[in-house]
């Protein structure tokens, strides 16, 4: 008896959720990690997106139509990411989708978007090769090898290249593993820097003492860490505890405006490449201010935007420009052609000379963004921009 009631309630709930949008609005979907294991970087993405949408609508919308965003929280679950893409494509009549957030979600949701013929632009995934082979898949992030190469270029020009390095990375996580086994070794080999030790750990491991003892034995000048922000914190703290003073090189996935504060003195000398530097210029600073106001109003404890927030904000502006150029009307009868037109515009984005808070960028042939890389260094509990490299 009870379960029948549940099923009825479930069915009505599902119908409500699937209500179509008003025809005159231009709908875009936002597939995000409001909750779930990756929510640390994802939970405020909607705030950034809404900021951009408000700006666009306040300036008169797109060809006279208002932009409307539908939000779906996938909780980082690939299955739900698929549901999100399907809902946006089939039920909501969305013209394009911002997201999915993570690499794991992109891998299952990109094929769905491809079948449905709808553009998806991920704002955070950075695993190599995600968009390859897809016509409708894009991402407004930068791949790790390019970023790390540029970090080494910056070190070279500042004459702080280490004589030898050690690599430590999480073996059970895709991005960390591709950093530790591909991006780092490739970049070091190109620069002619010998790798004296390669050590693995598990992403969830909390005790890295045995690995750091091995590291200490190798005594490298610098240590490249392949792992997330949390993994970098764990490794650095254990290194300093065991008295390993080597310089730390991190990757784009470890970029976090809070890292300097989180690491304190332990972080001195740490370098990482990023496509979003939160102190870059006035434009970025004004975005930060707006973001802080909006997150505070929404009751978030996190008020400083991270790269996923900044990227999501830029994606809205890029999409708005694409919609404008494709002259979309939001007419449901022409949905399919207009979705294709948006994709075609994104494919030829290089001609726009577009510039956002991530700097000047466009999508490459495979759908990855060609973003500038900022190399930053932590010194005295704060970030300092070492260099910005675009080519």
């Amino acid at each position, binding site marked *: 008896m009870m*379960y029948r009631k549940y099923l009825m309630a*479930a069915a009505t709930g599902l119908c409500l959720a699937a209500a179509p949008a008003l025809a005159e609005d231009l709908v875009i979907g936002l597939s995000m990690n409001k909750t779930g294991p990756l929510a640390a970087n994802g939970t405020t993405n909607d705030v950034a997106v809404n900021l951009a949408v408000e700006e666009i609508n306040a300036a008169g919308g797109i060809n006279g139509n208002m932009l409307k965003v539908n939000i779906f929280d996938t909780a980082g679950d690939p299955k739900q990411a698929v549901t999100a893409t*399907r*809902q*946006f494509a089939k*039920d909501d009549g969305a013209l394009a989708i911002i997201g999915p957030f993570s690499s794991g979600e992109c891998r299952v949701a990109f094929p769905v978007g491809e079948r449905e013929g709808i553009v998806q632009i991920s704002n955070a995934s950075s695993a190599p090769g995600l968009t390859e082979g897809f016509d409708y898949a894009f991402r407004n992030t930068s791949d790790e090898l390019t970023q790390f190469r540029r970090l080494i270029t910056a070190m070279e020009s500042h004459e702080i290249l280490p004589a030898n390095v050690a690599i430590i990375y999480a073996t059970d996580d895709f991005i960390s593993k591709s950093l530790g086994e591909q991006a780092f070794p490739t970049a070091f080999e190109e620069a002619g820097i010998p790798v004296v030790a390669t050590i693995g750990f598990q992403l969830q491991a909390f005790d890295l003492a045995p690995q750091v003892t091995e590291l200490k034995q190798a005594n490298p000048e610098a240590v490249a860490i392949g792992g997330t922000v949390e993994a970098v914190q764990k490794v650095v703290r254990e290194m300093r505890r065991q008295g390993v003073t080597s310089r730390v090189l991190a990757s784009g996935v470890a970029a976090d405006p809070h890292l300097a504060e989180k690491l304190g003195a332990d972080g001195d000398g740490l370098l990482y490449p990023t496509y979003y530097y939160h102190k870059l210029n006035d434009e970025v600073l004004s975005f930060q201010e707006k973001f802080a106001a909006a997150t505070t109003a929404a009751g978030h404890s996190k008020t400083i935007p991270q790269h996923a927030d900044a990227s999501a904000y830029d994606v809205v502006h890029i999409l708005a420009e694409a919609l404008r150029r494709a002259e979309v009307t939001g007419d449901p009868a022409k949905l399919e052609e207009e979705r294709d037109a948006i994709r075609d515009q994104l494919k030829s984005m290089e001609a726009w000379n577009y510039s956002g808070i991530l700097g000047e960028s466009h999508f490459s042939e495979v759908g990855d963004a060609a973003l500038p890389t900022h190399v930053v260094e932590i010194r005295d509990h704060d970030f300092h921009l070492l260099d910005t490299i675009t080519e």
Partner: protein
Amino acid sequence: MSGYLSGVLVAYLLNLIIAYAVFLPGAGGILNLGVAGFVAIGAYASAWLSNEMEWPLAVTILLSMGVSALIGLAISFPILRTRGVYMVLATIAFGEVVVGLLINVEAIGGAAGYPVFEFIDLPVIALCTLAVVLFVVWLMSTRFGLALRAIHDDEPVAALFGVSVRGVRVAAFTIGAAIAGLGGALYGHHYAYVDVIYFTTLVSIYTLLYVLIGGVQTPWGPIVGAAVFSLLPELFRGATEWRYVFFAAVIILIMAVRPEGIITRALLLRLKRRGTIAAPTKEAAQ
């Protein structure tokens, strides 16, 4: 059908198939917390056979069920020697070993995961789920099912009436492994990607959780249990962060009110009896 509904439905149906993989041994009192390992084996086997061998889907799926069943058969003998908490831990250990090994096999992508090219959509998944439901309902109505339920209630007495306790338990575990393999294969082909991080012990724990919530006494339990697990959080979708707290509270509440699961035999018999009693009174009124 709306995209949202079909997305939720696919997730529900896949959860349901895996629920039956846990239910079948569960009906005989075996708690399998390593089911994610079998799901992973099925997913990777079917993906590999279809990607590398380019065999037709029907063949790769059947073979992946076979692989999962064989491994289930082999592991069932040592695992079924254990009891209670030990069995829970042994099955957890099995699931972890599978994941720990798969993540190091570069031929199937290792930690990078493994893309699957052949696509299976909702209708096929729905048909497979229906087949699994019918199969399990039928199996539970046979003498095999009777013996399995008898083992759940009183293993020594079942043996004293001629039930081959070990045979029935091994068969239930093995068939469960095959069903888990099917669930995994469908999962991989539908989501076009398999990655060991989808097959963690947490998945096994949650599956056992909703099977127990549904009830292991009748084959209808998993249908309800999987619904509670897959659809309830959808109802609370608007509550964002709070939805898992509500979900947890509902679980605790359900278990307090119905400790043998929502669907019990007593409930079904009561409903049936009410039906048969209601019928004659209608006639009498005419």
